[in-house]
């Protein structure tokens, strides 16, 4: 599908609700009385006209001719000679049948492609690692492919000696490799007020997870003789046109967690992700992971950079903005089944999804299929790593009736992912950033899954 076929008009803001007053009362009353039917009735309108489709028939019937032609007639690939090694200029690419799996822009979200976002296709990914070519993108002033032999990294400010390093020198230092998630502070922002986009790619696709390789920033600060006691804040600065700047707390750097990274999933960073050097700030929103990193400066005060004084500030109900909100709190989402998908039939499904926390490891994930009335604990798949995506799975037999699927994560600090109701009670609906509310997916009787909020 060509991107330019997408209607590029601004997406209409969803009104406050799509049920009429009577419908709302029904949902409320039946929800209270605990009748499972409430979902079916509440969404009767949404599913109106939806006859039981052919999809609900047996998925893999024996053809009348007594066998599957895909078995009976041997295909070309079973009877011919395949292709040779090192094709595609020596760099393998996904199967031609995987061309639907792309990172995509959300139509109407931004007016230019250089100050914009593309979302990772979470609905189609497995495990915890995001393939580098599908990693979400956020650029403020376009991306560059920078000659690494000309890239320099500077340390200055409250240091004994300001220093510069070449890439050769940085790559000679002792390195570490760690899996971490990166999530844009504005991930899920469009759904703060109400449902605005159809699929998990657009609701949650500004999160990705990679194995990053690099040098702990503390190593470089120590080389320059940084004042680690009075230098409580470090400014990180990019080398591109936007020269993005963000304030990083020294306490996080001295813990050894913050990396100056050049590696991503076994190869160098992709240009769209900051080649040849970017900052890794585990648990903190993506805007702090400065790309094309050219400089860090040690200081004794925060910097109030554009992206911590105009953007990436969270508006509260009283008109005050929370400044320097950085941690991505515990969050999870079911990626399958999720919005825009169609269940093929009644019967067994593996509900699967992702959980993460900017404060450490994910401790448990619970899943509900009845809109949050009853929950079952999901299986956490290994590895379960600190400040990394964690994959969860749960067995589910779909009876063909409407269901609302949710996931709720808890991290090792004991913090439990909030509901929309809880989050809005303290922050209102206008804070744009840091929406980590429990996501709901409505499975309709016709098998189609819809993004829904029922709070």
């Amino acid at each position, binding site marked *: 599908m060509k991107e*330019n076929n997408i209607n590029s008009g601004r997406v209409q803001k969803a009104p406050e609700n*799509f049920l009429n007053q009577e419908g709302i009362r029904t949902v409320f009353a039946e929800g209270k009385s605990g009748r499972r039917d409430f979902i079916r009735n509440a969404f009767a309108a949404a599913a109106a006209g939806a006859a039981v489709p052919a999809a609900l028939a047996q998925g893999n019937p024996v053809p009348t001719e007594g066998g599957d032609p895909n078995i009976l007639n041997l295909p070309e690939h079973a009877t011919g000679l395949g292709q040779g090694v090192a094709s595609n200029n020596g760099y393998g690419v996904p199967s031609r049948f995987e061309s639907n799996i792309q990172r995509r822009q959300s139509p109407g979200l931004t007016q230019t492609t*250089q100050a914009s976002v593309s979302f990772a296709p979470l609905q189609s990914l497995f495990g915890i690692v995001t393939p580098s070519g599908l990693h979400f993108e956020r650029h403020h002033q376009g991306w560059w492919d920078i000659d690494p032999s000309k890239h320099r990294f500077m340390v200055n400010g409250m240091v004994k000696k300001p*220093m510069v390093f070449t890439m050769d020198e940085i790559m000679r230092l002792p390195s570490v490799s760690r899996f971490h998630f990166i999530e844009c502070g504005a991930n899920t922002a469009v759904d703060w007020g109400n449902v605005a986009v159809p699929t998990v790619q657009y609701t949650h696709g500004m999160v990705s997870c990679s194995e990053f390789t690099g040098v702990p920033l503390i190593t470089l600060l120590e080389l320059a003789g940084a004042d680690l006691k009075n230098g409580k804040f470090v400014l990180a600065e990019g080398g591109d046109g936007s020269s993005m700047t963000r304030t990083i707390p020294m306490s996080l750097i001295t813990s050894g967690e913050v990396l100056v990274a050049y590696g991503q999933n076994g190869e160098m960073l992709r240009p769209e992700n900051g080649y040849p050097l970017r900052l890794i700030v585990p648990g903190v929103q993506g805007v702090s992971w400065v790309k094309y990193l050219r400089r860090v400066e040690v200081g004794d005060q925060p910097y109030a950079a554009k992206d911590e004084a105009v953007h990436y500030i969270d508006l509260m109900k009283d008109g005050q903005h929370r400044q320097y909100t950085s941690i991505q709190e515990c969050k999870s989402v079911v990626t399958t089944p999720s919005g825009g998908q169609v269940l093929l039939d009644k019967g067994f499904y593996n509900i699967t999804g992702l959980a993460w926390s900017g404060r450490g490891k994910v401790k448990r994930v619970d899943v509900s299929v009845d809109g949050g*009335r009853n929950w079952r604990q999901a299986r956490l798949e290994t590895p379960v790593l600190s400040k990394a995506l964690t994959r969860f799975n749960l067995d589910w037999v779909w009876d063909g009736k409407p269901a609302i699927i949710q996931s709720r994560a808890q991290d090792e600090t004991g913090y439990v992912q909030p509901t929309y109701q809880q989050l809005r009670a303290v922050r209102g609906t206008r804070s744009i950033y840091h929406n980590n509310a429990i996501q709901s997916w409505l499975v309709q009787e016709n098998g189609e899954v819809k*993004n*829904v909020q029922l709070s």
Partner: protein
Amino acid sequence: MSSFRKIILTAALVAMAGMALAQSDKYPGLGRAATPKEVAKWDIDVRPDFKGLPPGSGSVAKGQDVWEAKCAHCHGIFGESNEVFSALIGGTTADDIKTGHVANLSRTDFPGRTTIMKVATVSTLWDYINRAMPWTNPKTLTTEEVYSVTAFLLSLANVVPDDFVLSDKNIAEVQKRMPNRNGMTTAHAMWPGKEFKGAAKPDTANTICMKDCAPEPKHASLLPDFARNAHGNLADQNRLVGQQHGADTSRPEGKATPAPGTAAPAAPRTEVNNESKGAIALLNKHSCTACHGVDKKVVGPGFNEIAKKHSGKADYLVGKIKSGGSGVWGPVPMPPQSLPEADAKAIAAWIAKGASK
């Protein structure tokens, strides 16, 4: 070895020894001292206490000239435009300047939030204009131009009078008039350190309930039907195989969901012809796409629209690219573009032929 070469070698050894002494013993030979010239070139940040602010000044009047030449085509003559980026100016009052709180921020019915409504620190404006503006030519403004443009913006918001000259000497006084200077709080638990002495506990406290939990739904929201296909056909955004397939949103819901195994095979990606590919690469290289979409209007007309109007007129288009202009597509002026003749010709030829992808 000549005595000259000996001297050079000795000097080099002395220099190396000096370097080794100055750095940590742990990783000998890695990194070197940054020269003052290098630090001066890169260390351009300006903090809220104005550390890093270079001495200088600039007037509102000069700022207006710079603004109209370099900024207005994206941000509007009065910084009010939200065509490309969020509006910069608007929404603040004389009372806000007194209180340091922008009253409109607590109104849920106020449309949009401008930069001047949000920003608490004038240093942020100076720093950002200096480092990242104009969008397509960052770091090309002189220090005087940065002071001037900052002054002009502040005058649009009535923070400073029209005849004001902003300088490093009076910027601290201007800070005391910033409309939202008291509008920030660090009383939250989302900073990963204790530097701001924020809240110790997160602001929500959900608990784990497993059975008969009352969701008490108050309202529900779903995407309206007309938005079902607004992000394109969702069948094309899911894998061909898997436990769920994508919904075919190009057709009405529930009518003909494809049966398993009958999904259409993946259409191979459309081949882009090489001439278009080259021209589009040039558009990106010269930042044309900052203002013109290939198939849609941004600030200026889409290339498809230009192609329609000026089909076959490659020479005319080369002239327009190089000299700029206004009036053909609306009042927003296009500045003259400095790009190699060959590139301008290639772009013009591509547009004249229909601006295909």
